[in-house]
């Protein structure tokens, strides 16, 4: 199992190795895709294995996977595959239109691989100190992707991202310190006091005052990476300035990795402090994010910023689901994580096709994509409906579960408030995307895909929409079991 986990975290580096060896977009793209396919296969194996056989650990807890990490590994590996396919197509066009130099393309694949690999690695460690190091390292790798295009706006976005995230993760380190302090009364060895399974085993005996502070600091710290309001300010800039497949990785993989770290702390706090405190913290940050995200979605302009604010909103929804708690809330949160990851990857990758075709990120200048870029336009429309939670897509089911969990938790007006904001989000978001997709096209797109690029570009879109549709109509029993097992691992 240890070998498999190490291999899983190392495989996405295939693209990095190719880029370092001097490959152009074509070869590096294929290498990245090959690595991602293999990583997804291994992640699926790990998911099955942890679901059936329970957790396993090695190297004194530095390597630890349980059902929860299995589920997140699968989600992130799936996103990495979609984004690798998208990158392979996107970067090839950028290379031969000359928008990005060959060096920039190599830089992209180099850091893309490192970013993916660090995120997968952070999901396979049980040591909370190591988790901090890996998550901060993934910030550095992804900041290079944000600043790749080297315009003054993208450099500004990259700086903002790196400095805010570093501050956030440093705060998470303080949280980790207080968690360790709360365990000093127990007779754990120094290393065990930082290793999640041991801490979870003794969670009831952790000193409550410092555990409370540790949890709050972890939510603020890792919440900065998740994009919970009011720590979300880096997020729209970074998502709109990064090349689109990299935005997909940020939104669908990085945010989830941060959420995973929060869930680890939340599991400890829920046992050690009881439900009430955890619920209050998660609901405050969750509703804050939903409200901020939705309000900023009303503005019609840069469509990548719109998708980014939608990510803030969805992370808020997941936080709310975690706050409602109970098996139903947890189930909704995890299912929503998977659904949102796939849906947002599809949206960002298709937005990349629009950026390539029209060289603009302004929604007001785009009309009739359904006519000029039929497939991208169609996917954009379906993807928007999916991300807004319309049936028959997966997000409908998960949001419905979360609302039900809200009513089940005994509060009537909180889920009602959530519904209200979901409705506002629907109107705001759909107003922009339908305006882009429908109507009559004024101009035809400049650069489009040809040959093998077309296959690479279409594959993630079709695959993603397919998965969303599948999850909306029927949850495979294996996935159902995996989610139930993950809930068992964290409660």
């Amino acid at each position, binding site marked *: 199992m240890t070998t498999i986990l190490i291999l899983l975290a190392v495989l996405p580096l295939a693209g990095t190795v190719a880029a370092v060896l001097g490959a152009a977009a074509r070869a590096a793209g294929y290498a990245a895709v090959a690595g991602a396919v293999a990583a997804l296969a291994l992640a699926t194996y790990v998911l099955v294995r942890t679901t059936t056989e329970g957790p396993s650990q090695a190297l004194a807890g530095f390597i630890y996977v349980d059902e929860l990490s299995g589920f997140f590994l699968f989600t992130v590996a799936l996103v990495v595959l979609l984004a690798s396919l998208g990158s392979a197509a996107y970067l090839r066009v950028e290379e031969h239109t000359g928008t990005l130099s060959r060096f920039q393309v190599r830089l992209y694949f180099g850091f893309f691989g490192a970013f993916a690999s660090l995120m997968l690695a952070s999901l396979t460690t049980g040591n909370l100190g190591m988790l901090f190091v890996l998550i901060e390292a993934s910030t550095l790798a992804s900041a290079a992707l944000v600043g790749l295009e080297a315009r003054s706006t993208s450099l*500004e976005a990259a700086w903002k991202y790196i400095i805010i995230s570093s501050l956030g993760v*440093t*705060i998470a380190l303080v949280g980790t*310190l207080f968690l360790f302090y709360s365990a000093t009364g127990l007779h754990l060895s120094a290393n065990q006091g930082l290793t999640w399974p041991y801490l979870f085993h003794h969670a009831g005996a952790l000193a409550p005052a410092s555990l409370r502070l540790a949890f709050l600091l972890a939510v603020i710290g890792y919440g900065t990476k998740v994009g919970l309001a009011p720590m979300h300010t880096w997020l729209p800039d970074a998502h*709109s300035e990064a090349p689109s497949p990299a935005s997909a990785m940020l939104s669908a993989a990085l945010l989830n990795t941060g959420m995973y770290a929060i869930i680890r702390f939340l599991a400890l706090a829920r046992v050690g402090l009881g439900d009430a405190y955890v619920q209050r913290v998660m609901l405050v940050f969750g509703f804050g994010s939903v409200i901020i995200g939705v309000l900023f979605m009303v503005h019609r302009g840069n469509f990548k910023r719109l998708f980014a604010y939608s990510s803030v909103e969805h992370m808020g929804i997941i936080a709310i689901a975690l706050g409602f708690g109970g098996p139903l809330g947890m189930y909704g949160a995890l299912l929503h994580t998977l659904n949102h990851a796939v849906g947002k990857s599809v949206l960002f990758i298709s937005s990349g096709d629009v950026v390539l075709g029209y060289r603009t990120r302004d929604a007001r200048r785009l009309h009739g994509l359904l006519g000029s870029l039929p497939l991208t336009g169609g996917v954009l429309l379906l993807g928007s409906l999916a991300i807004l939670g319309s049936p028959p897509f997966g997000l409908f089911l998960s949001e419905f579960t979360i609302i039900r969990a809200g009513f089940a938790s005994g509060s009537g007006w909180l889920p009602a408030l959530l519904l209200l904001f979901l409705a506002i989000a629907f109107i705001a978001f759909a107003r922009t995307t339908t305006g882009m997709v429908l109507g009559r096209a004024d101009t035809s797109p400049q650069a489009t895909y040809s040959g093998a690029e077309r296959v690479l570009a279409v594959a993630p879109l079709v695959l993603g929409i397919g998965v969303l549709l599948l999850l909306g109509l029927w949850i495979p029993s294996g996935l159902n079991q995996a989610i139930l097992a993950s809930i068992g691992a964290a409660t």
Partner: protein
Amino acid sequence: MESLNATSAAGVLLDLCGVLMLLGAFACLGSKLFNRYVVYYGLQSVVLSAATGVVAFHFARIELWVLCVLTLLIKGIAIPTATRRLLIALELKRDVAVSTGLSTALILGGGLTAFAYLVIRPDLLPHGVVASAVVPLSTAIVLLGALEMVLRRHTIAQLIGWLIVENGVFLGAITLVATFPFIVEAGIFLDLVAGVLIMVVFVSGLTRELAHANASELRELRG
């Protein structure tokens, strides 16, 4: 875990170091010259290194001695030197990108210090151990560093703010949990991050871009 007693010699020294570091953070907040930021940060790091030495001596822990030496070499000498070079290369003297006046900044800083004492309430830390005196100080240093990052818009000032936050975190770490197993690794790693940040500022010429960018150029990143 054994804790430092507040009245022991080591405890008093540690407390003193904490106070000096807080003063350093205030000095940075109250200054407008880039050179001063670097000097105050360097002095603060030297004091942090001394504090680490005190704890290392008291508990006779080899990894804390390593941290003490590394702090002195990297944070006390290397980072200030590199930043100073950066300032000379980019011809930076006065920081004009400040959001508030200095007096407002200092008042806000005082408020945050009081807040730090409020948050670290007595039920968190037992009385009599030095941590109950130093952890509020380190929390205040963290908050002051963060305040500097918020109030100053220049990349180098923000960088120094983050480094001050880091110093505060490590002061808290060595007093609260001297046995924290990850402390040296985390320290080295964060220094690496700082190095990368300095390189980013230098290589990309970002400083120039940001210092000269006016509101209209940044319009794209609003809202």
